């Protein structure tokens, strides 16, 4: 159908022509004017309190205490259940967030600008490992770290990013892919390259050596630091490709721990959801699948632009980490994703695939026709609030989302 092919070509061109740059770190309330008191943005498609999973509820309670809307976690939980807290997806406000994806008004957010289309996207700062809010953590140590990110780290790194005139992200991703990252469960190379670029600017702009050392160490000790920047980059790249009538290219994939949701270019802001699946993977010592929560997070935006599970061939070490088989089998994931995408990204290539570009532009027609669904590399959260990460694995997007979208786009185009 020519209308669809032309629309898809336009969507693909917009994705490939993106020029994402990290330009700042700014408190969320300054970036998102509609983000008010007693309003929380979360990962995934829309969800009400009564359907939220354990880690999401734990993170919500923590975020409420962090913002000072309740004095302690039990009070915060009651407040959340009372209906006095507004919940909305990050994606409705130009933002994304990993795992539980909490975004509230005082949290500092990375700002990524897509210079080609003059749009911006936001993501919170990666908190590091251990007990963290993105996995449902909400104790005093979690809130203390968030306060440090808000009061010390965010302003320090923001000063450096602005002094540097922004940081080009596509080139960091290209280098990271050649150094063993797939940008979802392995961001070690990109985090290191980012640190190499930003460290001199942090030194130039910081006035306190102790703070500078603390901030440099925070980046250097967190292999996943770059993930949140990559997520904001993914959102900045895909947003201009949304809303092209007739296009069957996926512009959003995300999950909230209960539902998996997709959005498709030709269908704009409409969500297509289905129950989210349980990741298959490996668990940390002392944990098993009995402890696992179904998958969650906006981080599947990196798969939406051809990274993560789609770029598994670039990161054979990750295949073992997420329990996806032998490192030699990593290429099978990337080849498989090539069956449901319309192109390769010539700027992001994989040496182990003879420098083939990452599979880009998920076409819902190809997904439903083949039955091959997107694979997403993911962290696994404990199903109870407040505990945190218990493993890592691979999760498949539910086919039902794509089937619903096919029916909807056929209706929109008058095809029956």
């Amino acid at each position, binding site marked *: 159908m020519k209308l669809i092919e032309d629309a898809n070509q336009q969507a693909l061109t917009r994705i490939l022509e993106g020029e994402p740059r990290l330009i700042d770190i700014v408190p969320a309330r300054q970036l998102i004017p509609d983000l008010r008191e007693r309003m929380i943005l979360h990962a995934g498609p829309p969800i009400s309190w009564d359907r939220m999973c354990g880690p999401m509820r734990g993170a919500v309670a923590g975020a409420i205490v962090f913002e000072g809307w309740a004095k302690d976690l039990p009070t915060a939980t009651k407040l959340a259940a009372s209906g006095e807290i507004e919940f909305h997806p990050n994606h409705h406000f130009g933002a994304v967030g990993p795992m539980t994806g909490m975004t509230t008004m005082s949290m500092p957010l990375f700002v990524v600008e897509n210079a080609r289309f003059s749009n911006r996207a936001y993501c919170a700062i990666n908190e590091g490992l251990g007990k963290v809010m993105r996995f449902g953590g909400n104790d005093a140590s979690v809130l203390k770290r968030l306060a440090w990110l808000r009061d010390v780290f965010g302003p320090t790194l923001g000063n450096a990013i602005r002094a540097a005139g922004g940081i080009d992200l596509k080139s960091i991703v290209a280098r990271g892919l050649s150094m063993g990252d797939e940008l979802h469960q392995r961001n070690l190379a990109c985090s290191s390259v980012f640190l190499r670029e930003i460290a001199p600017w942090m030194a130039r702009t910081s006035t306190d050596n102790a703070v500078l050392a603390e901030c440099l160490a925070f980046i250097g000790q967190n292999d996943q630091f770059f993930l949140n920047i990559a997520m904001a980059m993914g959102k900045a790249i895909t947003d201009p490709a949304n809303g092209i009538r007739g296009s*069957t290219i996926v512009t959003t994939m995300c999950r909230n721990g209960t539902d998996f949701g997709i959005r498709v270019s030709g269908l704009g802001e409409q969500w297509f959801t289905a129950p989210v699946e349980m990741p298959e993977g490996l668990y940390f010592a002392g944990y098993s699948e009995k402890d696992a929560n179904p998958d969650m997070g906006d981080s599947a935006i990196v798969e939406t632009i051809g990274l993560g599970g789609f770029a598994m061939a670039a990161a054979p070490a990750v295949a073992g980490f997420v329990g996806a088989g032998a490192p030699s089998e990593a290429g099978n994931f990337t080849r498989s994703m090539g069956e449901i995408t319309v192109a390769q990204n010539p700027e992001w290539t994989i040496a182990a695939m003879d420098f083939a570009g990452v599979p880009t532009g998920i076409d819902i027609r190809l997904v439903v026709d083949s039955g091959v669904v997107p694979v997403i590399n993911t962290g696994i959260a404990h199903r109870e609030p407040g505990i945190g990460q218990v493993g890592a694995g691979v999760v498949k997007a539910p086919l039902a989302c794509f089937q619903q979208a096919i029916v909807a786009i*056929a209706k929109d185009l008058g095809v029956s």
Partner: protein
Amino acid sequence: MTEQDRPQYQQLLARKVEVVNVGLEGFVKDLRDCDIGVVHVDWKPSAGGDPQMAALLAKLGV
């Protein structure tokens, strides 16, 4: 009856057989157990065999 007089399918089976298996993978093991060379093609009917969805996809250009 000479070799050339036999029906064509019999001529095929008189030589070494090599197989391309399309779809169900279960046949592959049996053939390999008989030392028969086999290449498997991973194929499924469009839309998992759902005729309505397959028809819709055909109209949408798959």
